[in-house]
């Protein structure tokens, strides 16, 4: 696909977005002048090192944070200009998979997935039961419906959270580090599920991750973020063969490069022998 395909039929548009935690000018900008487009029906990855603002971006899209500058537009509406009612109406059409799942620990797996259905719809219990079982079947955990979250392994918890995120068939699904801490089999399973669900629902998926191998297999487009700015973007193919130093270091897992190995410190010799 070309960048032309990207800009047509965009579900999410991010224009000149900046964000800092404190409002005074001296504080560090977590995000600085971000421009992104998320088209419908595609899986887009946002990659970068830890602490570069990827999770903040998801929170800005979901309306949990207000941008310092610029705007996030979802389905034609500007997120930070919405009142509570419209924001909640928008969130009902979004699903979010939190790192480590964030399942409600006082409810069973079944009740966790039924939660959004029971809160936002008036469907009768039999229908809710059928829908929950369908969602569980899609992630392969229909037999685990009566377990409690504390009885699940990491991979299973992640899958249940995924089923909960798509409980109301959202148009936008966001994944915060979905591959973190998983064994290779679970990695493959989660990756496949992300792709299949996106295609089945016709939704858009935003995957925030730093797992290169798992994501390159399933994503349509990648944005690379470093120090609050987008340093590169393109399809998986383009990124693998990219010459941009940061992208190269990231994809080939090199210890030193644009992201330095050494945390900023004094000159080595001076620190060891300087006092003598």
């Amino acid at each position, binding site marked *: 696909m070309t960048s032309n395909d990207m800009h047509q039929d965009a579900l999410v548009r991010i224009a000149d977005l900046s964000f800092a935690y404190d409002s005074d000018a001296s504080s560090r900008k977590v995000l600085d002048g971000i421009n992104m487009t998320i088209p419908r029906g595609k899986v887009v990855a946002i990659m970068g090192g830890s602490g570069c603002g990827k999770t903040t971006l998801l929170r800005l899209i979901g309306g949990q944070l207000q941008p310092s500058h610029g705007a996030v537009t979802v389905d034609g509406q500007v997120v930070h200009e919405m009142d509570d009612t419209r924001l909640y109406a928008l969130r*009902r059409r979004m699903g979010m998979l939190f790192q480590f799942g*964030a*399942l409600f620990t006082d409810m069973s797996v079944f009740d966790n997935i039924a*939660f959004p259905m029971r809160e936002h719809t008036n469907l009768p219990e039999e229908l809710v039961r059928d829908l929950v079982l369908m969602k569980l079947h899609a992630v392969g955990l229909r037999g685990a419906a009566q377990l409690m979250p504390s009885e699940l392994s990491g991979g299973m918890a992640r899958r249940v959270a995924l089923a909960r995120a798509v409980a109301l068939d959202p148009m936008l699904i966001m994944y915060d580090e979905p591959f973190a801490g998983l064994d290779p089999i679970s990695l493959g399973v989660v990756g496949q599920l992300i792709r299949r669900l996106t295609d089945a629902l016709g939704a858009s998926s935003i995957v925030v991750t730093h797992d290169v191998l798992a994501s390159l297999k399933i994503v349509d487009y990648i944005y690379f973020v470093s120090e609050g700015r987008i340093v590169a973007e393109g399809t998986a193919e383009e990124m693998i063969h990219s010459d941009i130093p940061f992208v190269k270091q990231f994809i080939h897992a090199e210890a030193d490069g644009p992201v330095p190995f050494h945390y900023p410190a004094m000159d080595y010799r001076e620190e060891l022998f300087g006092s003598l």
Partner: protein
Amino acid sequence: MTASPANFFRGLGHRVNNGIWHLGFASRFFLAILMHSGMAFRRFHLTIREIYSTGVMSLIVILVSGLFVGMVLGLQGYDTLQRYGSSEALGVLVALSLVRELGPVIAGLLFASRAGSAITAEIGLMKATEQLSAMEMMAVNPIARVVAPRFWGGVISMPLLAALFSAMGIFGGYLVGVLLIGVDEGSFWSQMQASVDFREDIVNGVIKSFVFGILVSLIAVFEGYDSEPTAEGVSSATTRTVVTSSLVILFADFILTALMFRG
């Protein structure tokens, strides 16, 4: 440290500022709870669940403590009263001490340590594991769904627990005074009935326990909601709940007693 006095005052000012900011935040939080309490009552089973966690689970502590406090009052009271030949006033002593002060205050302190800390830990843990965030992203207001039922559960449980404490205590005083020591049963109850006024003593005691219930529940949910989302954050929030609640109860008790019992 350079210019130590200046630093001291700066530190003091900073802490007072923080405290006032904290207080303001807590007041806005209280208003938010009140505004979003609709769900806690429309879906009353949520609140019932919390009444169970805070009230029913505290029953044993309250009943046993009340019994022992009443028994001690019986022993100590008799020891002092019989020196002035007024041992028939034992019932009055036990009843008034419990209904006016010890019932609401001690039940409040026990409630803060048992139920209040549990509420703080629960909410804090939900915050630390991003469950509150997940709820928000699913367009369910966590204040309405998680915080308000716990707040109202505590407010409803407290006066009932205080009444049970006082009742148990009077029974304990009766056990020790009448059955064990041998104070006249008739004068025990009749003097008590003559001296304990419904409006002055009992209603005031209930009002006190109601106020304490609001304060402790508010502190518990606030500390949990405002805690740092780490293990240390949740643990320090839990201890803060117990300490702050205890101090606030004793302070409020002084204010209420001065207002109500000026004679």
